[in-house]
């Protein structure tokens, strides 16, 4: 071995520090080798690009491991293997995202860019109108204004109800309860609530409002707000609870030691420390409910015109709009127009959630303490 190293050093002029490390070009060699071998193997059973890419990746990871074991040592090889796998996981996660986004963008963008799509509702849009626009190739009329308004109002309503309840409950669970019966019961039932099928939440809200305000008037935005809250609260509780739990106890103890009261400690120390996680959890919860179709359909109904009042009359929402337009086109003989509106509405929904996400991040940024290594 030693003589080998010496000759290496003499021949290639490598520094003493890099002795025992694999040469820099190992990864390129492995990648090229894997690609060739993969192509050769696939050539035997029928070549296709997807299979080739997958097989190359697998071979690359394996060959890198083997070559590192040979050239360096097992620990470094394991480290490299996991690094490759983690990068691989990221690439795998990106594939469906890119695919879905591409599908939505390529089909939905023309609809979104149609004049007045966001400013119009569906008032006056009948099958005849759609057939005309499809047959004559003019731009598709009608839009999502009513659904946009409905979705925003209903989601904001549900957030206003669920976030305080959810956040306070998780504060109770983490900060106040001493693991007693009551906190166990809450944890247990929050778990139960995550399992409520969304349609059941909708039926429950509709039934509850029916007994409260009587039949007929119970179909309104607020019923949908209740239904979504039932779905949203457990998600908020579970994610914020987790985030509050990982706040180091040292921080709390330091605060108490300075004579700060518990509630001020929670508000000023615990929550700011975990605000980024909480914001992210809340965003996820919103994303979870803003796309719900069935519970909104049975509680808020459908509408073709804009309604700004949560407490009166039916309301349209984006997912219901997407679902109805996609599955039950306005003009059955010319479904293209409805399909275009549906995909464009899906695009609008994604953009909204994206903006909400950004908003949550800004809030988190504004409240979060200055971060430095703890």
């Amino acid at each position, binding site marked *: 071995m030693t003589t080998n190293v010496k000759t290496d050093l003499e021949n290639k002029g490598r520094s003493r520090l890099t002795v025992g490390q694999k040469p820099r070009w190992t990864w390129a060699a492995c990648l090229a080798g894997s690609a060739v071998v993969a192509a050769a193997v696939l050539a035997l059973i029928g070549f296709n690009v997807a299979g080739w890419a997958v097989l190359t990746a697998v071979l690359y990871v394996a060959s890198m491991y083997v070559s590192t074991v040979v050239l360096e040592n097992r620990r470094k090889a394991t480290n490299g293997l996991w690094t490759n796998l983690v990068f691989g996981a990221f690439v795998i996660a990106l594939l469906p995202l890119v695919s879905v986004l591409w599908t939505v963008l390529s089909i939905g963008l023309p609809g979104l860019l149609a004049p007045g799509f966001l400013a119009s509702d569906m008032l006056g849009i*009948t099958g005849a109108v759609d057939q005309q626009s499809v047959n004559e190739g003019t731009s598709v009329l009608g839009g999502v204004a009513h659904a946009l308004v409905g979705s925003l109002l209903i989601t904001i309503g549900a957030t206003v109800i669920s976030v305080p309840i959810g956040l306070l409950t998780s504060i109770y669970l983490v900060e106040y309860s001493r693991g007693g019966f009551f906190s166990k019961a809450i944890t247990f039932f929050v778990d139960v609530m995550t399992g409520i099928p969304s349609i059941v939440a909708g039926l429950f809200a509709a039934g509850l409002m029916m007994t409260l305000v009587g039949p007929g008037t119970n179909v309104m935005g607020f019923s949908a707000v209740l239904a979504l809250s039932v779905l949203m609260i457990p998600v908020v509780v579970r994610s914020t609870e987790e985030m509050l739990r990982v706040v180091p106890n040292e921080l709390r103890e330091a605060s108490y030691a300075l004579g700060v009261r518990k509630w001020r400690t929670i508000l000023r120390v615990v929550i700011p420390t975990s605000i980024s996680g909480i914001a992210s959890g809340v965003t996820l919860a919103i994303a979870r409910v803003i796309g719900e179709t069935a519970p909104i359909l049975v509680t808020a109904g459908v509408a073709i015109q804009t309604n700004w009042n949560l407490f009166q009359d039916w309301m349209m929402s984006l997912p219901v709009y997407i679902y109805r337009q996609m599955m039950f086109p*306005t*003009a059955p003989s010319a479904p293209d127009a409805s399909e275009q509106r549906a995909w464009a509405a899906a695009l609008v929904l994604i953009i909204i959630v994206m903006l909400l996400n950004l908003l949550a991040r800004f809030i988190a940024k504004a409240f979060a303490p200055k971060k430095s290594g703890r």
Partner: protein
Amino acid sequence: MKKLSFVKTAAVLSVAALALTACGGSNNPTAGGSETAGGGGELSGTISGGGASSQEAAMTAWVDGFRSVQSGATVQYNPVGSGSGREGFLAGQYVFAGSDAAMDAEELESSKDQCGPDGAFHIPGYISPVAVAFNLEGVDTLNLDAKTIAAIFTGEITNWNDEAIAAQNDGVELPDTPITVVHRADSSGTTENFTDYLAAAAADTWTYGVVEDWPEEIVAENAQGTQGVVGQVTATDGAITYSDASAVGDLGTVAVKVGEEYVPYSAEAASKAVENANSVEGAAENDMAVELDRETTAAGTYPIVLVSYHIYCNEYADQETADLVKAFAEYVVSEDGQSTAEASAGNAPISEALREQALESISGIGVQG
């Protein structure tokens, strides 16, 4: 700070994209979508209905058309499904219901709570032929009798060049393609109508009865909703399905054997089937619930027809609602209403005789007390 600026840019861009498209202003056509808008009308208020989603496209047209006749009145319709529609109607949530099936005796009895002593009645407002549609290279239409259709859908006939199909289609070149049956995955009035036809006209072959859910025993491809099955058939060579005729598009369709001739689906043939149907036994005089004669031999009748009813009360609690419902019901069956729906939804307009009968029934709508 770099991350923040990325986030900011993204936010600004997406807001800008939204704003750009929003500034175009509304593109909604004026009421009625045409110059026939008379405006005016003396009624005002809102009535809500709910029920069958099969009527959704037509209902959109009716709601819009009614707005042009009675500009102060609003009708809203929730396509929650026939069963939920009837339930909501009986609970007083909806003042009218759309339903693919007529109410049974029990439901009629309980309708008296909301509708006064005479209960509710049905109007066959939406009639649509159910087409048996297929995707077969170079074949636009096929002649088939009920027995053969049933054999195809039960999986007894598995290839398009089967003897039974060839015997009824002289001169049509049938390819050697396996048959892929596509059925509805969801509960549907269309499935119920189609199986009702098969059960009546080909009882020997179709032994699964009249069902809303496709029988599990028959293993076949399926898809959700009319759009789903049509899309699946369009994408698959050799596939066959049943679907609301308005949605079949360019697919080939089956002419069904009635008596001695083969009848392709058409609006006239469909409404004729409803006209020739028997009224349900023991129904009130103004109740137009019908039992279709699936084994009919009457010439020019297409027996696979979906009839979706509008269910109204004989008596409403207050005058305003009664007037609104009456005006809407009259508009729906009127020549204008039916042709508006036909233009939008592609359903079959009801015949003159049915219209007269329906108007007669509707004229009885009044106020309780």
